[in-house]
């Protein structure tokens, strides 16, 4: 039987990472649940064994159910009628099977019926589902909402909503509005408190809401009348059973067609406040956004994996000029680079996830007792690493998933352009990853400060300390030189004004990301030689990519911005 977990040794490799035991120890807090819940682990090994076995369950479902349904789900899509949305039959089947398998609420504590899994297996699950069907990955992935409720809502709300998520209650995060996309501070949906009922009511419109007809919604709304910025926004939880929300339409999209994207009308919809007023955007959404970006990272890696496998299969099967096309340099180079980009983005995905795991676990421990000063320092350090790595993960993995889908389709030639092969769907599905949950351009904005304040450089210098086997010394030397080059590029750019820095920011962020991802592959190659191939290819390519960026920056003077600025004066009528 096919199994998306068992057929991928990169995934098993993650569970053998040295940090894994520590993550589990923290997550299980001295295995306090072992006596209370009959499915709780008693030692780290036990927990990791369970992670693996549960990944096997999911891997089988992904291969035998979700991937099989993907084509039909893409074709049929969800159905919209009288204000409600019905999933495509395949989507509903995916959902039903995953509920039976108990794969909702994976990261929630056991007291709410969750599995209390750490982030590594949770993110891996997201990757597996995305490889099977990237659109469905959104519906499954919105169980992330449970995380936000768990972290910030009152005990009453937690008890009311969290157990339902384990039984597969669907979720949505309602943030975007027609005039508030990247700029969420502009959210207008109104939340008003009715003293008489002692209740909040929501009125307004939301747009582009993934899975908008969900049973449980988290809604960002303006609770402070007369305000115009992010500080007037609060976060609410809404239950579909309370009524008052209609789906006005669903979008007709390029990709991820199985996932309904809804325009919603809130008409006196009752809701409950999550956490504190005014912290909606500035605290809760920001935190949720980091989780969502990790999710898109996982989705992107899943898409890259699917694309790579389709291309590899086709390149072996398709013969031209008397031999399989994989024999031609033009094709095998593309395939090898696809694999290197896939493996480097996966390395970055799990590195980031481990950082998130450690600091989040400390956060939960802190609810029960005071952290020691050492623990506090460590938690802070890991939180900073997670914040630093999340934007480059989102940026690089989503861009690579698009590049990989593009090249994989190219390997299919004319057949790839037809609906006959899955690569056509994968190519369309990949496209959204660089856009939603913050465009690539916004990831650069988020990452930029770690370029200018030297944080990436400091972390790269940390990686530089890894011991490598003699045969890898040469690669390490290249990386060290690339780091010096990066440092010089940063120094040059930050001499300029803000406009100049913004202009070059993406180049610098990408240079840092290439070096970091190279080190991660190099480090993996130390424990498993099979990563040597991708490490070597990726480092070689990275060097040339960084040389190109450096060469552009090195001689770039402020006045060279002018021709770019002149584009602002152009308009469509006289272009």
């Amino acid at each position, binding site marked *: 039987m096919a199994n998306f977990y068992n057929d991928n040794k990169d995934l098993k490799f993650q569970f053998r990472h040295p940090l894994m035991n520590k993550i589990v120890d923290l997550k299980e807090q001295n295995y306090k649940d072992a006596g209370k819940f009959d499915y709780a682990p008693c030692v780290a090994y036990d927990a990791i064994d369970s992670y693996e076995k549960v990944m096997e369950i999911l891997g089988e479902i992904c291969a035998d159910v979700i991937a099989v349904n993907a084509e039909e789900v893409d074709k049929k899509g969800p159905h919209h009628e009288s204000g409600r949305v019905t999933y495509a039959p395949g989507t509903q089947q995916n959902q039903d099977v995953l509920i039976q*398998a108990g794969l909702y609420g994976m990261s929630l504590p056991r007291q709410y019926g969750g599995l209390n899994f750490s982030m590594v297996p949770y993110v891996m699950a997201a990757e597996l589902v995305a490889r099977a069907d990237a659109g469905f990955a959104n519906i499954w992935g919105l169980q992330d909402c449970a995380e936000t409720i768990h972290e910030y809502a009152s005990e009453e709300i937690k008890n009311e909503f969290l157990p339902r998520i384990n039984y597969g209650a669907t979720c949505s995060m309602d943030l975007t509005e027609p005039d508030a996309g990247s700029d969420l501070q502009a959210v207008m949906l109104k939340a008003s408190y009715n003293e008489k009922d002692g209740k909040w009511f929501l009125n307004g419109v939301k747009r582009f809401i993934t899975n908008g007809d969900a049973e449980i919604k988290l809604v960002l709304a303006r609770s402070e009348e007369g305000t115009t910025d992010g500080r007037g926004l609060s976060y609410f939880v809404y239950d579909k059973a309370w009524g008052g929300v209609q789906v006005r339409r669903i979008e007709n999209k390029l990709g991820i067609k199985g996932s309904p994207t809804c325009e919603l009308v809130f008409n006196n919809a009752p809701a409950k406040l999550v956490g504190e007023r005014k912290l909606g955007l500035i605290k809760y959404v920001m935190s949720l956004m980091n989780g969502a970006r990790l999710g898109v990272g996982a989705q992107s890696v899943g898409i890259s994996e699917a694309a790579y496998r389709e291309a590899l299969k086709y390149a072996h099967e398709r013969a031209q000029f008397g031999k399989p096309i994989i024999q031609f340099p033009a094709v095998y180079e593309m395939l090898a680079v696809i694999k290197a980009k896939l493996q480097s983005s996966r390395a970055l995905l799990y590195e980031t996830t481990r950082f998130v795991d450690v600091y989040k676990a400390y956060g939960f421990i802190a609810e029960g007792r005071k952290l020691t000063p050492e623990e506090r320092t460590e938690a802070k350090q890991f939180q900073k690493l997670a914040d630093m790595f999340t934007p480059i993960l989102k940026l690089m993995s989503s861009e690579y998933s698009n590049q990989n889908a593009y090249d994989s389709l190219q390997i299919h030639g004319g057949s790839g352009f037809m609906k006959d092969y899955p690569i056509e769907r994968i190519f369309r599905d990949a496209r959204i990853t660089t856009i939603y949950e913050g465009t690539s351009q916004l990831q650069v904005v988020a990452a930029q400060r770690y370029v200018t304040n030297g944080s990436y450089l400091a972390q790269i210098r940390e990686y530089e300390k890894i011991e490598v086997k003699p045969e890898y010394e040469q690669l390490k030397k290249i990386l060290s030189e690339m780091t010096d080059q990066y440092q010089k590029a940063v120094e040059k750019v930050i001499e300029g004004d803000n406009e100049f820095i913004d202009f070059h920011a993406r180049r610098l962020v990408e240079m840092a990301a290439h070096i970091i991802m190279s080190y991660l592959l190099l480090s993996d190659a130390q424990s498993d030689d099979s990563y040597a191939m991708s490490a070597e290819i990726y480092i070689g390519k990275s060097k040339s990519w960084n040389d190109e960026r450096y060469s552009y920056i090195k001689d770039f003077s402020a006045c060279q911005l002018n021709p770019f600025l002149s584009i602002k004066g152009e308009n469509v009528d006289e272009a």
Partner: protein
Amino acid sequence: MTKTFKIVVLAKQVPDTRNVGKNAMKEDGTVNRAALPAIFNPEDMNALEQALRLKDAYPGSEVLLLTMGPGRAAEIIREGLFRGADGGILLTDRKFAGADTLATSYALSMAVKKIQPDIIIAGRQAIDGDTAQVGPQVAEKLNYPQVTYAEDIVGVKEGKIIIKRRLERGIEVVKTSMPVVITVHATAPACRPRNAKQLMRFKHARTKSEEQDNEHNSYLPTYTLDYLVIPEWGVNDIGGDEANYGLSGSPTKVKKIENIVFQAKESKRITSSEEDVDTLIKELISSHTIG
């Protein structure tokens, strides 16, 4: 209060006969299980799903797996536990070895007598023998009604169980008393997946024999939890006449197993021309294939 039922699923661990090699049979004519990967017999999975659906419909009902085989057949019971069964019993005894369908159904029926279930559900047949005899023989020995080729157990009404059967030319709905033996056809719904919590809850479930030579679980504290013990029953536990068990109770002797490769017959190319189609139709009519 709704009615609850005690349901036994007869399940078999079978060699995966999709890849039969040369060493598939032992010299005594029985299947060489060591040479083939062991799997949960597919139609028994359909049977398990029917049992679990009954349990869903009649909460409080109990689903037990009953399997006969060597020690490693405990895996079948764990698979059932992971999917929602409440427990299982492994019938294992050297004296059961070499059993054909008659001796097997004798052993199963003796165990069923001891368990006293309301409903016994089995797959129609196992992929290693394809006999479809065990279910019906168990029913005969216990003198229970039997319903074969079941596709859906519709429910229980006024003490009678209603079952939809898949027949060659249609569907038949029957009603019968309990206890009853039902054999389930492959067209019945596929079994639900393993459940994450159930898996974590029962992954350490094992028989006493497994406990004794268990190395990989050495990190575990010694479990005394009852629900993690998979009971093993031998001849002494279920009683009966020893001569009816194992080889001595088995009149069937397998003479030989052959791997048959189907040869393609001569082929003939027919174009879409009027003439060719006409000739083909005439040929088919004269050979009475059509008309």
